[in-house]
Every structure is written in structure tokens, then in C-alpha cells.
């Protein structure tokens, strides 16, 4: 066991006018994750720290925070991978509720905005699932993008993200629906994505892709959608009655 210093963002809106950073010595080994370190502060040092977690194995996407300046999942970040002291603070671009907990509402609101629910004209509970080849173009595009755990790391690292821009994760979700041949609302969705705060807000800085713990090709996905949107725009101009 070695000791690692964790410097943690503390903020209690009831009592603090400003956030502070407090440091704690945490015993760590090769298997300690940043989340474990925070649990140590909570359970052993008894700091009554607020943080969010659920699955502790990279599935729920609840424990995202800024770790040494980068948005990551705390449960999937081994302390041994980081050098020296560790600084943790809540994600950027989202309002802080307390300590390390942010309000994810603005992030999830953008999902609601792209109308994420699936609709098919042909399929329903009575029909057999569609035949879709695993090597088809749609599956190739959709598959890697469905592993999104909704952690918001991409949103935290995006310099444009605000309540107007749809944001990287929601746009990628839209792409999975646009590419889905079973889905019936492609045109409608593309309309929405062409708005000023849709795909065109993205300046292709690529921070989102870098921070995604699930290695989703996010930036590339946004570019793909821009292309779809252009095609859609041209089509609209040529065939306005469609």
C-alpha cells in the first residue's frame, strides 16, 4: 500500500458561498480505482462526501467526473494509471448539486429534443423482427454507437456545449436512428439536426472522442450526420413537395 493524495472539490450550497478543494491521504494499491479512493474518504475518513455511482464496473455511466482535468469514469480509472496527486472535480458544463454531483438534466434534455423514441411504420409487437444482416452498412454504423453509457464525459469536455447545442452524445444517438432502416422518422429528425444548434454547431475539436470512456467514434459520427443533413437539404430544395 502506498499513500496517494486526493484533492477533492467540496461544495455544499447550504453552507458554502464558494467551492473549496480539500486534500486527503488515501491508501492505494494496484487495484484501487479513483472511485475506491472516494469511498475511502467517505467511509473511513468519514467526510460525508456526495458523489454518484451505481454499478462500479463501467456500465451505468453514473460516476463521471473530471479527474486531473479529464472527464472520466471514476470506477474505471485506476489510481496507478495517474501520476502523483489526484484532483477530482465535478464535470464541466453542468450545474453542481453538491461536492462532485452535477445535475444531468441539461445533458439529458438534449436527448429528449432529438425525439429519441423509435417508430416504425411496418413493425409492431405482433410482427417478427426485421431481417438485418450483421455486415450491412447500417449495422456497421449503428453498432459501435450503441455502447454509449450516457455518462456525459463528452459533454463535459466539449467547449461548445451549452443549453443550446444538442451536444455530442445526443447527436450520436440521432445518427443511430437516422441510419436505422427500420425507423420511419428520418426526414423529420434530419430537419431538427440541421438547425443552428444541431450538427452545425460542432467545430470538430474532437475532445469528445478523446474523453469517451467507451471509445465511441463521436466526432466522426457528427461529421457523418452533417453529410446526411446536406443530402437532405439538397433533396428538400430539389423536391420541395416531399
Amino acid at each position, binding site marked *: 500500500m502506498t499513500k496517494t493524495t486526493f484533492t477533492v472539490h467540496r461544495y455544499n450550497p*447550504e453552507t458554502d458561498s464558494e467551492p473549496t478543494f480539500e486534500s486527503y491521504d488515501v491508501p492505494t494499491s494496484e*487495484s484501487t480505482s479513483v472511485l475506491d479512493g472516494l469511498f475511502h474518504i467517505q467511509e473511513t475518513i468519514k467526510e460525508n462526501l456526495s458523489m454518484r455511482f*451505481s454499478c*462500479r464496473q463501467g456500465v*451505468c455511466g453514473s460516476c463521471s467526473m473530471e479527474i486531473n482535468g479529464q472527464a472520466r469514469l471514476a470506477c*474505471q480509472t485506476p489510481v496507478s494509471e495517474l501520476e502523483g496527486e489526484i484532483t477530482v472535480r465535478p464535470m464541466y458544463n453542468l450545474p453542481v448539486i453538491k461536492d462532485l454531483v452535477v445535475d444531468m438534466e441539461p445533458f439529458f434534455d438534449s436527448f429528449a429534443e432529438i425525439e429519441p423514441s423509435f417508430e*416504425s411504420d411496418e413493425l409492431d409487437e405482433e410482427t417478427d423482427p426485421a431481417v438485418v444482416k450483421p455486415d450491412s452498412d447500417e449495422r456497421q454504423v449503428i453498432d459501435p454507437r*450503441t455502447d454509449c453509457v*450516457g455518462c456525459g464525459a463528452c459533454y463535459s469536455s466539449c467547449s461548445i456545449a451549452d443549453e443550446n447545442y444538442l451536444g455530442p452524445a445526443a447527436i450520436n444517438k440521432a445518427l443511430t436512428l437516422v441510419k436505422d432502416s427500420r425507423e420511419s422518422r428520418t426526414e423529420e429528425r434530419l430537419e431538427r439536426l440541421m438547425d443552428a444548434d444541431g450538427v452545425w454547431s460542432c467545430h470538430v475539436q474532437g475532445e469528445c472522442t478523446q474523453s469517451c470512456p467507451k471509445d465511441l467514434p463521436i466526432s466522426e459520427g457528427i461529421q457523418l450526420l452533417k453529410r446526411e443533413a446536406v443530402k437532405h437539404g439538397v433533396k428538400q430544395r430539389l423536391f420541395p413537395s416531399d
Partner: protein
Amino acid sequence: MLVVGAGGAGLFAAMYADEESPDDLDITIVVKKLAGKSGCTRMVQGGYNAVLHPDDSLEAHYRDTVEGGKWINDQELAWTLIENAPTVIRKLENDLGVFFDRDEDGYVHQKPFAGQSFDRTVHKGDLTGIEIMTKIRDELLTRDVTFLEETRAVDLLTHDDEVVGCVVLDMRSGEFEVITANAVVLATGAGATMYRISTPALEKSADGQAMAFRRGVRLQDMEMMQFHPTGLLAGDTKLTGGVIEEGIRGAGAHLYNTEDERFMSRYAPEEMERATRDIVSRASYQEIMDGRGTDRDGVLLDATHLGTDFVEETFPGMTDRTRNVGQDLSEQPVEVSPTSHYHMGGVTIDGNCRTELPGLYVAGEDAGGAHGANRLGGNGVVDSTVLGKQAGQAIASEVRDREPAPYDPEQVEAIITRVTAPLDRSDGADIYELRELLEETMWEHVGVVRTEEKLIEGIDEIRRVRERLDEVSVSGSCQYNLEWNEYMDVENLSLAAEMVARSALYRTESRGAHYREDYPTRNDDRWLANVYVQRAEDGMHIWDEAVEFSRLTPDEEEGVAAAPPEREHADEG
């Protein structure tokens, strides 16, 4: 209608209720964490059992389930699951847009799981749960359903033996609220986390089972707790207990004790490491308890002879997981232990998820009966989604016009006083120590292998934990206070733990997940029965009732051959 919990069961209940009754039913979901981003349905890796192929049949799936459950399943409930599973799969794909994996010809791929007579497990890679939960969450985002996130249900409100609502706590603000409802669905996912080593999401703490018990509702087969044989041991990291999937043993990995012995040769000389979950779990547990375990109380899972490249390519997720904690499955043996995984026991319900208490419905892992003494891999998510559907549909048609009676403010007061008590104390017992004591007690005394003596000691110890809860003090304010939440968790967990221990003491035989060293055989003459537990004046009343064989009867031959044929493939879930 109030739904408590937003895993598979809770969200399906909300969706189906909304579909049946779109205009005149207000649906509110309270969830302790984030909606669709918490609980175990999200964590499902392996997949979903459903009859889709023309060569398969509902009867075959049913028989597998009842034989797997060692004949104490509620046969009607089990049939409800099997009959509805294909409908729910079509719903997931065709209405929600879930993309399950495909065969080369483009049809939905179905893979083999242990205990199945046909390859019927539908999946999306090994992240099936994320796909299902994300899509249903997306769907509900566009419907008229109210989500109250980070809001925990504290206790049910009753009037004249009917449920009229629930006291909930907004964890962010620390404020209590009363939600009155025509019907309440409990879908909190039980509490396999009561053991030192366990697989589920951390917030699950038998809240639903404890709430039901406190209102006098009966629960059944609480002794039936399923252990998965290979939970990763990684020291004091919270990852400990996470599953190393069984496919790796199917692929030929070996288990060793610290004396370098492939100990399965003593317990299952023919099947060795490919024996069923309960047998391998028991063998490892015995080795550990007999002192042939590692320093961290584990055994060694060795896949190195299969070749580094093979392991890395075939089990990338698992290899990564071990690397994350400084071990490397592809290059060295890793430490594993049985890990508490799934609770077959729970609240007694009928096929529409109704309980004895009007207005109260229970769905998913909080409910008991469908799986008997042992759940097959792939039947858990069937349980949560199908029962969610049943509850939602039933509520929409049954309680639409029911006017809940007024709630009793004194009952509300009593609940709030009880759970806020530790905030008013200082210098009391430490809740994290009590939690640890409870988990240790369950592991040592009510674990994979049980005896009368150990169970009696265990019950005493659990009682002591429960008494000491009255001394706990919690620091800080009510807002987003994790320590205070831990207190409420341990209160419920310890209550459910006592039900598990007492039911285990009561069942004097071995069956499925329940193994008594002092009664090592299955006794069909006496115990083709369900064990019930209910609140009584002086504590817990326990009794049993014979199983009703409404569809299939265990003739003698089947009884003996009840263990499903061993297969050589993944047995995840």
C-alpha cells in the same frame, strides 16, 4: 400510479400502463439513482431467453425453467414468464428499436446458455442490458411519465389494509414527500448485496422487500439466494465481486486451491470446472472455508494454458476488467470467489403481480416464485420485463377508478421519525461498520454452505446489528447525504437478511441454491414446498405450503434427473 424503481421491471410497468391507459392515468416513477442508469437490468451481459425459433417451444423453455428451479417454482407464474417472453422481445425490437445481434442470414441470433434444451438466449454482444435500458428510457422520455430521480421510496402508506401511497425522500433536497396513488408497484430489485462479496449495483438494498414486510405482506423462499461461482477478488476495491463470466470455464479454464490442486476433481470428477453454478460455488466455498484459499479468501482461476492471445481475443471485456485491478487473466491466474448474485425469493404475487394487499403490486427481483430454487441464466431479465408488463397492464385496467383512501398523517410522522433518528444523535455507532458486520455475518453464517449451528449464530448476529441500528448517528444535513442513505439501506438489508437466515434454518434439506451441510440431500417427500415468512407480533412467522403442480408434476425419474444437462458454453447472467 406510483412506480418504485427504474430497472427493467419499473420501466416496463410504466410503459405498459401508459399504453393501456394513456389519458387517464398519472404515472410517477421514483428512483433512488438515475432512471434507466441504475439497477441490475442495466448490468445484464449475457442475454434474454425467449422462444423465437420454430424448432424451439414454449413447453421446452418451461420445462427447463421448472427443472432448473428444482420443482418449487410457482408454476403459473413461471408459465406467465415463458409465454410472454417472445412478445416482449418483439416489443423491444419492433417498438423500442433495440438491436439484438443477428445471425449471418440476418435473423435474431440466439446463443446457448446452461440449463437450456435449445439455444434460446437473445443478446446484444455482452452489453444486452445497456441496450435494453437505454432504449426504454428513450421511449419514456417522450411519454407523459413523471420521473423523480434520486428520490427514494421510504415506506408504504396504508389505510384499512389497503395501500394508499408512499413516503418518499428527495435525496437532493433532503425533503420528504407523500405521494398518494391508486396503486404502487415495488420494483427495487431485491438485495443480493447483503453479502460481503456480491455482483449487483451498489444501491440495491432490499428496500421493496422490507417495505412489503413492514406492511404485513408475505414473502416466500427467501433462503434461495443464487451465488455465481466466479466473482473477481481484487482486494478492497468495490469491483470485488464483479463477475468473471462462466464462458471462460466453458472454454477450459481451471480452478486451483493454494495447494496447487484442481480441487473440482473431488467434487465433480466428471464435469470438473464445467459443473453447474451451485456445485462449483459450493466447492470453492468449501476450499476457502477449509483454509486452502488465498490470503484474500479466494481460489485461483487459471486460463493461461489456453494461450494469451486466445483469452484476450475471446474474453476482451474480462481481460480488461482484471487488468484494471492489476491482474491479467490472459497471463496469470486470477483470484475468484463465489459471489452473491440473484434473489429467487421475494414477495408472493399472482400472475398479475398483485399481492395480498390491495393496491400493492410487486414486479422483478423483489417478487418471488417464478424461479423456484434456482434461476436459469437469461431468465432474470425475462422476469423483470414480463412482470413489469403484467403489473402495468393489470394496474391500468384494475385501479383506474379506485379512489385511494386518505392517508394517515400519524403513519407518515412515525416513518419520518424512525428514519431521521440517526441525524439527531451524536457519537453513536458507525453505519459503515455495521454494514460490514452484516455482510460478514451473511457470508460466514448464511453463505453458500449452511448448517443449523451457523444459522442460529447468524440470526443472533443479525439481530444484534438490527438492535445497534438504534444507536447509529449520522453527520451532516439532509441534503444528498450518503451516510444517511446508507443507514436506510442497512435497515432494510438487515431485515431482509434475517428473513433469509430464518427461512434457511427452516428448510431442513438441500435444494438448488440452498445447501445445508447437515441435510445434504434433496428431500422431495417433505420439501416440495415453499417457505413463507410474514411479520408477526413477536417478529417473524414462518411456515410452508406444498407446491401446486398445476402444469407439470415431478415424477420420480424427472426428480432425480432434475439437474439440467451440462453444456460447454457460456452460462452468464
